[in-house]
């Protein structure tokens, strides 16, 4: 039986379904940013940005861009009614202080125990940059990861132990890949959903850590 991987937009749409009404959420740069487009309009979800925004909205119309109204990805945004500005100290208190409900981040690797690597490949010639990744990893009440299940070279990104430098330890709660959704639990990596036509054995073969089949039926 054959299967179809989820597109980046489909992963974003899937994550959006798990963001409850009233949640304070930080969406990382890249794929996580796309989730905003799939949040239903009947929910109040408060998007947080490191650089001091809460309840920001979609990009402005052409010609309405304001260089002083940007998100952490340095993209132009707008403010929703009820949105607020604050300085960096308060912005990171929202994370570190455990006020932010969900952070959605990308990953180079996630380990079976929830360790996350997403800031540095460890390559000697790489210029390291960390931004707010480590703060989000340890600070948000829940950390969701969106990622391809394997690298472009076919190597597993979900691994027994990290080989890249860690961003945070035991911080990941849930992983959304282009093949499945995995809960990171004390009892192991529980696959709660997978794409149609993909067997559990095939999924396990593409994963560097032991999975538990917790799919329904």
């Amino acid at each position: 039986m054959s299967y179809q991987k989820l597109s980046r937009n489909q992963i974003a749409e899937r994550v959006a379904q798990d963001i409850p009404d009233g949640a304070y959420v930080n969406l990382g740069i890249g794929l996580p940013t796309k989730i905003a487009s799939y949040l239903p309009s009947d929910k109040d979800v408060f998007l947080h940005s490191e650089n001091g925004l809460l309840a920001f909205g979609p990009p402005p119309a052409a010609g309405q861009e304001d260089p002083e109204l940007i998100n952490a990805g340095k993209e132009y945004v707008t403010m929703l009614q009820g949105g607020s500005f604050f300085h960096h100290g308060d912005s990171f208190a929202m994370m570190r202080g455990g006020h932010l409900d969900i952070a959605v981040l990308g990953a180079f690797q996630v380990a079976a125990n929830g360790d996350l690597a997403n800031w540095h490949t460890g390559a000697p010639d790489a210029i390291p940059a960390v931004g707010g990744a480590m703060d989000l990893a340890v600070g948000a009440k829940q950390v969701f990861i969106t990622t391809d299940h394997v690298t472009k070279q076919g190597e597993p990104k979900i691994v027994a132990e990290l080989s890249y430098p860690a961003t945070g330890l035991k911080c990941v709660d849930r992983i959304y890949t282009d093949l499945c959704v995995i809960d990171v639990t004390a009892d192991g990596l529980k696959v709660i959903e997978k794409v149609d036509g993909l067997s559990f054995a095939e999924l396990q073969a593409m994963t560097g850590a032991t999975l538990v089949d917790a799919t329904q039926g």
Partner: protein
Amino acid sequence: MIDKSAASLAEVLSQITDGSTIMIGGFGTAGQPAELIDGLIQLGIKDLTIVSNNAGNGDYGLAKLLKAGAVKKVICSFPRQSDSWVFDELYRAGKIELELVPQGNLACRIQAAGMGLGAVFTPTGYGTLLAEGKETRHIDGKDYVLEYPIKADFALIKAQQGDRWGNLVYRKSARNFGPIMAMAAGVTIAQVSEVVDLGELDPEHIITAGIFVQHVVQVQPEPVAV
């Protein structure tokens, strides 16, 4: 009568000397005090340590200061960006030192300096390369890293309006590091788009109280794209 807005930009900057540690506000170009930075370049000083979130964008502001060879060390969270070619080249050539600090630790270390704290225990970075060799402590079931305050001789920040007592209000996401840097430097210099009369800023809306600001300089910033 105290008038913190009396001196010209050049007069105010002339107190900055070789080897100073300078905080520069901004997140990317938003909130970067570009006119103050241009004035700093004119001084021709060198061996500066810069504390800022990024390490310059394009050939604008902070990037221009780096290009001028004025900076020996950058303390920041996110140097590598699509348009950080000035920093990238200096770093690869070994001509600039980098202390990489997670963004929230950068903020809380700056705040610790402004608040007179000796250090902070922060959970961010625990168990990572950026905490290697640092003291740690297990407090109430969680692991923390000991981080020391980041102080500066000067802070250069951008606000929207200021008055002659140094009270400031900011504009949108240009606020970012401004209020906390103002508290952490010996001398804080704020460039503002408008100096207003005392009493025009509503006390309920003042973000940075004048006690944290030594100089207010009115400039007409050029609009800049992200």
